[in-house]
């Protein structure tokens, strides 16, 4: 097992390896297991069957590959063998009815479940370019979270100033010079599309911002950690429509810099922002396709019933 470093690998991503189609990236044993595992009802999109609009996955590098991922809360088997690629610099949306395991799946990527007792991972999520299984017990979740950050459902700024909120991540990483911190904070706030609104009030308490501003601050806060991937857990469900739209625009802008995995309750949101969509149901992956195709011509009947609002 290779180790995970807290720093972003210096080499350009994938310079040393060819573009990986899904099948190649899975470790051998997992691939074998998957052959016996009928849990996934449709193979990931294959080259040649893509819409013209979306680039063929074969040419797309994979940031993280989940293979036969299982997760247990005590005796409850919450994820039942999820196999799903997360393409680099693309937005992948996870949709499905409440309790389908989409948030549980998302939280495996930064090992958030480790905070709670009696939880267990099985299978693998291989993170590239390190090519390590991040749900393995030998992985340090702290180092992992330094590289994969998260934005939560309800905006959760710390009860500190706007500046201190954004400086939190850099400080954890040992940045202590005032000048450097200021630069990092400004960069992150610009990245979070909230610099103009906050530049004159950096010392105000973050709780004086509106809900939508708080959520953009939280995005900025996670950007200040220079993540390779950001996990969004229903980031707009506590926001009004116009704030939602701003967050969605922001996610589209961020796509060039980071890989995004987003859980959403809102199918319109999935179709607006994401490049790929995965539909989950009862802890299993039902269908994974380029977003347009999943919504226009779903391959599974269950998917069709869900997206047409017949249940969920």
């Amino acid at each position, binding site marked *: 097992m290779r180790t995970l470093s*807290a720093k972003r690998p210096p080499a350009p991503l994938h310079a040393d390896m060819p573009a990986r189609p899904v099948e190649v990236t899975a470790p051998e044993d997992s691939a074998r297991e998957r052959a016996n595992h009928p849990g996934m009802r449709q193979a990931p999109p294959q080259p040649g069957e893509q819409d013209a609009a979306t680039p063929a996955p074969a040419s797309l590098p994979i940031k993280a590959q989940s293979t036969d991922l299982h997760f247990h809360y005590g005796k409850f088997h919450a994820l039942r063998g999820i196999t799903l690629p997360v393409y680099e610099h693309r937005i992948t949306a996870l949709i499905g009815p409440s309790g389908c395991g989409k948030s549980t799946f998302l939280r495996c990527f*930064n090992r*958030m479940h480790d*905070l709670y*007792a009696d939880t267990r991972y099985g299978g693998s999520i291989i993170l590239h370019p390190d090519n390590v299984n991040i749900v393995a017990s030998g992985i340090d979740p*702290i*180092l992992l*979270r*330094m590289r994969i*950050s*998260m934005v*939560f459902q*309800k905006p*959760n*700024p*710390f*009860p*500190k100033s706007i500046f201190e909120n954004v400086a*939190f*991540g850099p400080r*954890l*990483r040992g940045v202590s010079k005032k000048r450097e911190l200021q630069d990092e904070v400004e960069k992150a706030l610009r990245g979070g599309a909230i610099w103009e609104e906050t530049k004159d009030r950096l010392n105000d*308490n973050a*709780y004086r911002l509106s809900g939508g501003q708080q959520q953009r601050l*939280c995005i900025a*806060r*996670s950007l200040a*950690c220079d993540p390779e991937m950001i996990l969004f857990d229903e980031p707009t469900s506590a926001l009004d429509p116009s704030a939602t739209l701003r967050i969605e625009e922001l996610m589209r802008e961020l796509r060039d810099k980071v890989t995004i995995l987003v859980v959403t309750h809102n199918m319109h949101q999935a179709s607006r922002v994401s490049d790929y969509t995965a539909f989950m149901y009862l802890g299993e992956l039902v269908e994974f396709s380029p977003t347009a195709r999943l919504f226009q011509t779903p391959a599974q009947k269950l998917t069709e019933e869900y997206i047409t609002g017949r249940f969920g």
Partner: protein
Amino acid sequence: MSHAATSTMTARVASGRRSGSLTRTNVRLGERVAEALLLLAAVSSVAITVGIVGVLVFESVSFFRHVPLLDFLTQREWTPLFADAKFGIAPLVAGTLVTTLVALLLAVPVGTVVSMWLSEYAPRRVREWVKPALELLSAVPTVVYGYFALLLVIPALQWIASKVFSYDLPGSNMLGAGLVMGVMIVPYVASLSEDAMRSVPQNLREGAYAMGATRMQTAWKVVFPASISGVTAAYILAISRALGETMVVAIAAGNRPTLTANPLQPAQTITAFIVQVSLGDQQHGSIGYQSIFAAGLTLMLMTLVFNIAGFYLRRRFREAY
């Protein structure tokens, strides 16, 4: 409202399914009695407080007819029971402050660390045992703590002082009394601070962890500042407890008013003095008798000052979530 809806309503009213007048006739006696009792309870607690303050002030006024306020505040000796009586409150205030300070120097850090451990580190099972056990400590009568100080802690301190520092520590001193008092208030600080820390929303912790914070960083950089308001309240309560504590200091601090800031010396606190006089045979209305009211008033004002200071500190450093 649309016309149709209005007419339906009119129709319903007109049909008058429930007959009977809406005029106030029912007295609801039970309600009234309950209200009166609640009001009485509320009023009586206020009345008792006012009464106590009234008596303190009243008796103090007659005390200050005999003793000039300036003497009370500036003289360096407190000997109201002697023939050659001196009425400088300073030695008692010093004794009170020194024992309180010693107690806080122990209770605040220990209590804070214990509460942090309970709130952020201890597994749920352990916490469910430790916290009640800790709270049980506050059920120990303070007189027991007093003897604990006198018979165990101070002899131990004397042994250490003579062996390590070749210092002859008096058999009662403010250090021993203060330390035991500190042990006594650790449960208060720990329990109240833990409540404050645990009420910090989980999503703030998750936010910190999600950025790669360790448990320690989450605890001290996010949870502690967010709970500072409640934690300060715990400290203020600890100060009030220490200022007002009587038995431990009466037993173990030595009962001789001494103006000193050295905790190794014996001294008397305001409370210990009040006990001493109350137990004695001071004549009602004598100057010695009245002096305890002046001392009591001083103690109350000190507690009040700390409470007010705490209130402002809390507002100043508040990190509301």
